[in-house]
């Protein structure tokens, strides 16, 4: 029962976080939009009557609308986009023994976790990795790379799938998939705005007029306009970094929990430990998984960077806890389990 209560609390927390994330995202776009409007308005306030006056905050309205659209899209189609971006294909009719085994293992873990069977995808990549995505258990997808199928034994594969099913059951997938969509959108926005402003400055367009306005005025409102403009530009520059750091922080906490829940499902913590060992040993990067979806994976797709290190900086930047620590925790669980079993041999589990 306490497991159920814990699970419920986890799901509630993830629902709440998803809502806050969406709100934060829309607020960020509102700042980008209306902040820009404010700067323009302040800077064009002193312009001559025949020149352009920025009165209607259409940048703000537009960007809030598009933020809402992006949220809606991430909610509806985020999982498809993530899968599409990795080039994954859906496994429906297993052909090879490996594929059949994957299908079987997924069915087993669906029974163990008491969830409907998720859709199964294969990512054509030689580096072993896996991730889960979707809104909830009914729309969930589990994807593994070809490399994972080739390197892991049956028990290890089962452990990895159990880890992914734990993410599905805790509703981690919802938060993570939303985040993936938003990271993509922010990166695109930052890129696009940067390019637009750059070009505007060169061609002496609106930004040029702005600068002229700033120079000419020097009055009360304008320094504020400049400050806001600088802040505004700064937000655009650091937003992609911040959003990625947020994703990493969100993901890191969840990995230990999914490890533990997964080990509970299979009752075999050592299998996950040895799977992680193998995944850690594969030093190549998972090339088909881009930065925007890194936080979804069971191990960091670009290894060697941070996930193998420990310490403050690594804690801050890495999307995953150090694999060593995860393995040590799983070994601890295995030890506890062995102790229980020898103590209570003969009693029903």
């Amino acid at each position: 029962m306490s497991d159920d209560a814990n699970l419920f609390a986890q799901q509630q927390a993830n629902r709440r976080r998803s809502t806050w994330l969406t709100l934060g995202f829309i607020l960020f776009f509102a700042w980008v939009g209306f902040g820009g409007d404010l700067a323009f308005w302040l800077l064009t306030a002193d312009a001559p009557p025949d020149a352009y006056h920025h009165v209607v905050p259409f940048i703000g309205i537009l960007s809030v609308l598009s933020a809402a659209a992006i949220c809606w899209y991430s909610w509806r189609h985020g999982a498809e986009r993530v899968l599409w971006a990795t080039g994954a294909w859906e496994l429906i009719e297993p052909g090879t023994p490996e594929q059949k085994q994957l299908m079987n293992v997924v069915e087993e873990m669906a029974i163990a976790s008491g969830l409907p069977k998720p859709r199964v995808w294969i990512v054509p990549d030689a580096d072993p990795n896996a991730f889960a995505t979707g809104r909830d258990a009914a729309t969930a997808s589990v994807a593994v790379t070809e490399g994972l199928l080739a390197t892991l034994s049956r028990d290890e594969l089962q452990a990895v799938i159990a880890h992914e099913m734990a993410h599905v059951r805790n509703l981690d997938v919802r938060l993570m998939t939303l985040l993936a969509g938003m990271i993509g959108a922010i990166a695109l926005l930052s890129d696009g705005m940067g390019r637009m402003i750059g070009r505007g400055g060169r061609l002496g367009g609106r930004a040029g007029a702005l600068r002229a306005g700033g120079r000419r005025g020097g009055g009360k409102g304008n320094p504020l306009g400049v400050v806001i403009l600088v802040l505004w530009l700064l937000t655009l520059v650091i937003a992609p970094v911040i959003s990625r750091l947020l994703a990493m922080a969100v993901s890191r906490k969840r990995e230990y929990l999914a490890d533990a829940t997964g080990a509970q499902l299979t009752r075999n913590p050592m299998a996950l430990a040895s799977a992680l060992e193998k995944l850690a040993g594969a030093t190549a990067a998972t090339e088909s998984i881009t930065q925007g979806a890194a936080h979804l994976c069971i191990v960091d797709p670009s290894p060697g960077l941070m996930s193998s290190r420990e310490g403050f900086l690594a804690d801050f930047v890495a999307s995953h806890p150090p694999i060593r620590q995860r393995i040590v925790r799983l070994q601890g669980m295995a030890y506890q389990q062995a102790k229980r079993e020898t103590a209570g041999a003969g009693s029903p589990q």
Partner: protein
Amino acid sequence: MGTIVLLAVIAGIVLWMVGAYNGLISLKNQVVNGWKQIDVQLKRRHDLIPNLVNTVKGAMDFERSTLDAVISARNRAIGATGVQQTAKAEGELTQALGRLFALTEAYPDLKATNNVAQLQEELTSTENKIGFARQLYNDVATQYNTRQMQFPTNLVAGLAKASPAELWEIEDAGERAVPTVDLSPNKRGA
């Protein structure tokens, strides 16, 4: 005034009874459903075994006794009724199958046949599914049993025709672990 209080108390008791009754019925259905899930996998397992035996028969003819043991254990398992009997028969079947799988190790050409490997994978998976479905069933059944014995739910237990559900007990420690029969071709380098 007194009548209103009395009526409110009676209404409260009736409401509670309805809730407790419905809760018991829903748990009972979950137990039945949990058993059905096990049953589906057991059927699948029983269907797979003749295929396996037929496939390996030619190559392993002089292991007749092992094959016969598997067949008879399967037939006993099909005939078993009730949770206890089924659990016992299926446990024996698992052991007989384990011996057969151990023997196939001695026949590399048999293992190389894709068909045998596939059947083994299917049987391993089915056994795992039985194991996990059993876990789920035992959890729900325990919850149901506890609920109908606890005060005050036990007062409506008779009304809901609730009786303790049998748990699927595992006899020996060897069977307690998820079977590690793994001869599948999906090993590193294969």
